[in-house]
C-alpha cells in the first residue's frame, strides 16, 4: 500500500509544500549569509518555523484543490497575471489594508469582538514581523565595534544604523516583543470575557478549535514577558528555565499553525480576491431570475457556479424546460417549497378540515424560558 494514501496525504500538495519549504530554506540561507549570521540560540525556533512552513503550505495547497476554492484561485491567478489585474492592484492594496489590518468588517459584527481581535491580530503580526527576521538571521544586533555603549543593527548582513544603549530606540528595539505580548494577552482576556457571556459562542465553541489557540498564545506571551522580568528585576534568575519554556511554547504554537484556527491568518487574504471578483461581476450587471425576473446573480458567478456544480456532480439540478436551479433567485427557490406543498395538498388549504386531535393532551417538555 502506498504510504501516502495510508497517511491520507495528497501527493500534489505534498510536493508543493516541500518546494515551498525548500524555497523558504533557500531565502533564509540567502539572507543570513549561508548561516554565518544565524543566532545559534534561535536554532530550535528556525527548525520549528520550517516545519510550520511545510504544514501551513501543505494545508494551503490542499485547500486550493477543493473544487470551490479552485474556482476562485484560478480566476485570481488569471486576473493578476493580466493588465486588468495590475491596474486593480491599488484597489486590492486598499482592500487588504482594510480587511487584514483595520479589520473594520469585524467591528460591524460586534465592537467587543473587534477589540479583542485587534489586540490579538496586531500583537501577533507585530511579534511575527520581529521574530521571524531575527530567527532567520536576517536581522541581528551586535555591539558597535570598540564602542561598547552602542548597538549596531544589521539587515541581511548590511549595517542598518546604530544606537546608544539606554536610548529610546534601544528601549523600543529590546521591548517591542513585550509590547506585542501585552497586546496578545489583553486580546486573549477580552476574547475569554466575550466568550464567557456570549450564548452563541458558548454553544458552538470547541476546546481544540477556539480555546486551545488562546491558551497557547497566552503561554507564549506570558513566558516571553517573564523572560524580560527575570532579566530586568530578578538578576536573570531562572532565565534558562524560562527561556526553555518560552521556546517550547513557541515551537508548539508554530507546529499548531497548520491545524487550528490560526490557519485563517493565511486564508484571509483570499477575501481581497473575492472582493475583486464581485466588483467584476457588478460591473457586468446582475442577471435576472428566470421565474420572477428580479436581477440577482452576477454573470461571472453564474457561469463559474455552473462549472462548479458540474464538478460537484450537482449538474442534474435542472428543471423541465432546461432552467438551471442556479437561474432561480433564492426567493423563488423558497416559494417553490411552499408551492410544491400546496400542490400536494391539491392547491387547497381548508382551515375547517378535520384534523385528528390527540386523545390525551400532549406534554410539552420544552417550554419557553425567557
Amino acid at each position, binding site marked *: 500500500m502506498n504510504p501516502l494514501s495510508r497517511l491520507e496525504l495528497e501527493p500534489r500538495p505534498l510536493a508543493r509544500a516541500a518546494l515551498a519549504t525548500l524555497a523558504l530554506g533557500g531565502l533564509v540561507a540567502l539572507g543570513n549569509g549561508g548561516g554565518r549570521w544565524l543566532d545559534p540560540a534561535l536554532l530550535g525556533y528556525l527548525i520549528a518555523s520550517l516545519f510550520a512552513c511545510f504544514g501551513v503550505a501543505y494545508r494551503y495547497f490542499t485547500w486550493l484543490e477543493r473544487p*470551490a476554492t479552485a*474556482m476562485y484561485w484560478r480566476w485570481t491567478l488569471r486576473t493578476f497575471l493580466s493588465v486588468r489585474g495590475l491596474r486593480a492592484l491599488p484597489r486590492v492594496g486598499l482592500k487588504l489594508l482594510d*480587511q487584514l489590518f483595520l479589520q473594520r*468588517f469585524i467591528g*460591524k*459584527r460586534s465592537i467587543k469582538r473587534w477589540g479583542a481581535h485587534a489586540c490579538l491580530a496586531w500583537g501577533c503580526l507585530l511579534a511575527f514581523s520581529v521574530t521571524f527576521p531575527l530567527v532567520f538571521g536576517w536581522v541581528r544586533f551586535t555591539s558597535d565595534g570598540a564602542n561598547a555603549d552602542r548597538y549596531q543593527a544589521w539587515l541581511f548582513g548590511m549595517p542598518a544604523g546604530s544606537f546608544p544603549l539606554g536610548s529610546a530606540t534601544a528601549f523600543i528595539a529590546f521591548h517591542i516583543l513585550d509590547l506585542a505580548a501585552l497586546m496578545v494577552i489583553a486580546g486573549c482576556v477580552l476574547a475569554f470575557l466575550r466568550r464567557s457571556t*456570549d*450564548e*452563541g459562542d*458558548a*454553544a*458552538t465553541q470547541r476546546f481544540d478549535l477556539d480555546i486551545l489557540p488562546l491558551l497557547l498564545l497566552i503561554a507564549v506571551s506570558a513566558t516571553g514577558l517573564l523572560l524580560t522580568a527575570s532579566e530586568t528585576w530578578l538578576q536573570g534568575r531562572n532565565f534558562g528555565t524560562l527561556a526553555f519554556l518560552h521556546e517550547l511554547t513557541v515551537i508548539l504554537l508554530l507546529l499548531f499553525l497548520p491545524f487550528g*484556527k490560526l490557519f*485563517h491568518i493565511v*486564508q*484571509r487574504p*483570499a*477575501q481581497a480576491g*473575492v472582493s475583486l*471578483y464581485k466588483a467584476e461581476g457588478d460591473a457586468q450587471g446582475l442577471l435576472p431570475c428566470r*421565474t420572477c425576473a428580479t436581477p440577482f446573480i452576477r454573470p461571472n*458567478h*453564474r457561469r463559474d*457556479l455552473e462549472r462548479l*456544480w458540474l464538478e*460537484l456532480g*450537482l449538474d*442534474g*439540478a*435542472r*428543471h423541465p*424546460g432546461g*432552467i438551471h*436551479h*442556479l437561474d*432561480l433567485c*433564492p*426567493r*423563488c*427557490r*423558497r*416559494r*417553490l*417549497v*411552499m*408551492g*410544491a*406543498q*400546496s*400542490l400536494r*395538498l391539491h*392547491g387547497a388549504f381548508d382551515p375547517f*378540515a378535520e*384534523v*385528528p386531535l*390527540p386523545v390525551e393532551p*400532549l406534554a410539552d*417538555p*420544552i417550554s*419557553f424560558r425567557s
Partner: protein
Amino acid sequence: MVSEEYGFFIDPQRCIGCRSCVAACAECGTHRGHSMIHLDELDRSASTQTGPTVCMHCEDPVCAMSCPADAIKRTEDGVVHASQKPRCVACGNCEMSCPFGVPLVLPGLEQMLKCDLCYDRSSVGLKPMCATVCPSQALLFAPRHEVAAMRGSRPLREFQVGELLVRTRNAVMVPDPETPLHLDAALLLDGGF
C-alpha cells in the same frame, strides 16, 4: 448536541404571515440582532399564502460543498451551522447554491449567516426561537413520534430538483410523504396558485 429524537416540522399551509418568527429569530444568541428566517408570499396577486423558510439542514449540504473557505460545518446531530467567522470570505457561493434559498451574506459583515436551529437553545433541549413563538405551529420543533399524533399530514424529508435528490434533517408536512417533494420551476412560471 441536538437530540436525534427531536425534529423540526415546517407546514407553510399553516402560516398566517404574522412575522412573529421573524422577530423572534433576531433574538437567537448565535446571530443576535439579525433575523435569519425568510417569510415570503407565494404569489401576492393570486393567493394569501405566506410561508416561513428556515435552513433545512441537508444531509449533504450544497452550501458546504460550494464553500471555497470550508467555512460551513455539519455536526453529528445533523445541524448545518452558519459560516465559521474566521473563515468565511463572504463570496456568496452558499447563498447562490442553496437549493432552498436559505443563507444570507450580510453586507458589511463579510460573513454568511443562516439558521442554525438556534443551536444555543436546541443543543440544551430548548425549542428554537421561531418554533417557540409560532402561533399556528407552521414551525414546530417536537419529538418525532408526537407529530404523527398531532397532524393529519406527515413529515417529508426528501426534495427533488430535476435529477438532484436532497435529503434533509428538517421536514415539510405533506399528506403523502412516500415520494419526494418535486421543486419544479414550472409551478412558478404557470402562476397556477
